[in-house]
């Protein structure tokens, strides 16, 4: 656990970057620091590994003040990932990843094996091991940055806007990769971003900072969206707070109808304006209406019980039928969520 105990950072020019910050980043969780530019996120992060020293208060790592640990030793036990990856241009990928094991004096082979293992772990082709950083795409470099930070298996990982320099598609896959890795590794992660969506997606807990380095609110993402503590947080969360909150509402209890699926255009009840055509394997093919029996209309689907209400609603909006198709892991139709069913679930979500 990382503890900020009344930490203030005043730079020599008088700028107060962090003001009386008290918070905890629990072991095995992702704590996100989010806030507008200049609110002291990077400064807070760097005080943990003593790249910046606090002016007042103290930071504890599992109860031990970081001030009492010699900086190189402290840092070798804390992974650090930054926006531009910060890879060494003159070292091959494998050697970049093995940097900290090397500093710790592991033998060559062990460090190398560990690096190769991590390369695969972060989803990179082992062939890249012999390349130099400039021969990799931005997204690949960022993965190498993560692998390098994990190389010596540090219990703590600090990440400063690690994914903000890559395009949105790559960013999404990196975020998912991080969540998957975290599932396996259970590191104590402090993650800095200025993107509230990223904060909500990744954070077990999100700390919103305001300019001047003051903590505005520290809460689980769901709580943050439903109960912002003040106008600043509310504004920072943006306008579609309600929709985004649906991300945390499960589709598990959603009422489904199973009587709307048919094998061909002639099947099904004539009472129903829309019927869902499925293929032999039970996968969805398209919606069909009595008025245009030759034309299949597009459908939207979600993983039943796994995807959120936000996805279910999104799927409904994708189809002229207004219904959303629930599928299982194998892509087979489980049932159909009609407008009425979605309405019910939304009303429930608004209450809870």
């Amino acid at each position, binding site marked *: 656990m990382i503890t900020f105990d009344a930490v203030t950072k005043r730079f020599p020019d008088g700028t107060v970057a962090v003001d009386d910050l008290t918070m905890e980043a629990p072991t095995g969780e992702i704590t996100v620091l989010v806030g507008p530019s200049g609110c002291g996120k990077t400064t807070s992060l760097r005080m943990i590994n003593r790249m910046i020293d606090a002016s007042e208060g103290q930071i504890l790592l599992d109860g031990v003040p970081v001030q009492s640990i010699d900086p190189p030793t402290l840092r070798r036990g804390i992974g*650090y990932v930054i926006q531009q990856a910060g890879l060494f241009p003159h070292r091959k990928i494998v050697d970049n990843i093995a940097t900290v094991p090397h500093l710790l004096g592991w033998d060559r082979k062990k460090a190398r094996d560990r690096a190769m293992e991590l390369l695969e772990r972060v989803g990179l082709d082992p062939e890249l091991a012999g390349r130099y950083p400039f021969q990799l795409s931005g997204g690949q470099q960022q993965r190498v940055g993560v692998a390098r930070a994990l190389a010596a298996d540090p219990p703590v990982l600090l990440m400063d806007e690690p994914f903000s320099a890559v395009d949105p598609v790559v960013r999404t896959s990196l975020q998912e990769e991080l969540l998957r890795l975290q599932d396996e590794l259970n590191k104590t992660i402090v993650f800095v971003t200025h993107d509230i969506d990223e904060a909500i997606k990744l954070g077990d807990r999100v700390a919103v900072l305001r300019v001047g380095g003051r903590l505005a609110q520290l809460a689980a993402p769901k709580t943050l969206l439903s109960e912002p503590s003040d106008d600043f947080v509310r504004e920072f969360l943006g306008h579609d707070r309600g929709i985004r909150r649906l991300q945390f509402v499960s589709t598990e209890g959603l009422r489904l109808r199973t009587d709307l699926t048919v094998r061909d255009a002639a099947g099904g009840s004539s009472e129903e304006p829309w019927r869902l055509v499925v293929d032999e394997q039970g996968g969805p093919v398209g919606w069909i209406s009595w008025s245009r029996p030759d034309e299949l209309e597009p459908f939207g689907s979600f993983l039943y019980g796994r995807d959120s209400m936000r996805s279910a609603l999104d799927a409904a909006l994708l189809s002229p039928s207004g219904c959303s198709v629930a599928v299982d892991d194998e892509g087979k139709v489980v049932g159909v969520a009609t407008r009425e069913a979605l309405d019910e679930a939304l009303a429930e979500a608004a209450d809870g």
Partner: protein
Amino acid sequence: MGDGPPSLWEWIGRNWDTGRAGSIKDLLIDHLTMSLVPILFALIVALPLGLACVRWRWLYQPASGLMNIVYALPSLPVFMLLISVTGLSQTTVIIPLAFYGVAVLLPAVVGGLDSVPDHVRQSAVAMGFSPLRRLLAVELPIAVPVVLAGLRVVAVSSISLVSVGALIGQGGLGGLFTRAYQNPFMPPVIVGIVLIVLLALIADGLLVLAQRVLTPWVRVRKGVAS
């Protein structure tokens, strides 16, 4: 130069290694000594000086200013001044050339260290490099291409400038030019020019080779550059 007149080849044959001072071979060795020693000296001085200038920024302006003034001094009066101390020796030629070398290499070393991207330096710090280890394992290697580029300039200009030493009778191959001054006979001049240019090309080629071996990460970059 294969098609030179036979008299040129005859002249070379007769003067290559006469066993007396002033043979072409002797001059060549003198020339090499008087150009290589300043290059080495410049490297040995400019590296720590450059490091100090990066560490203490205020030092850089006065240090490079001073070197530039030395660089600007015309060589003839410098020779005259030095003769009173070191006489008509090779040292008199080597000293100013060494200073010229430092004047060119100092900005190269500082520029090389400045070329280390800030995020690379920061991540080295964050991974727990000690300052010395960071310098040796990260900053200096990344500075190598820029330093080597400076070294190429120093090497070529040093090899070419040695001939000025002929003014005081210590010009290495430059000595071949003063002979022609006394006696309008072309072969020595041609041999002098060709050998000096050849030396410069070889030195430059070796440095380019060194660059490729030491910094494969730069060479590949050029190949792939879009």
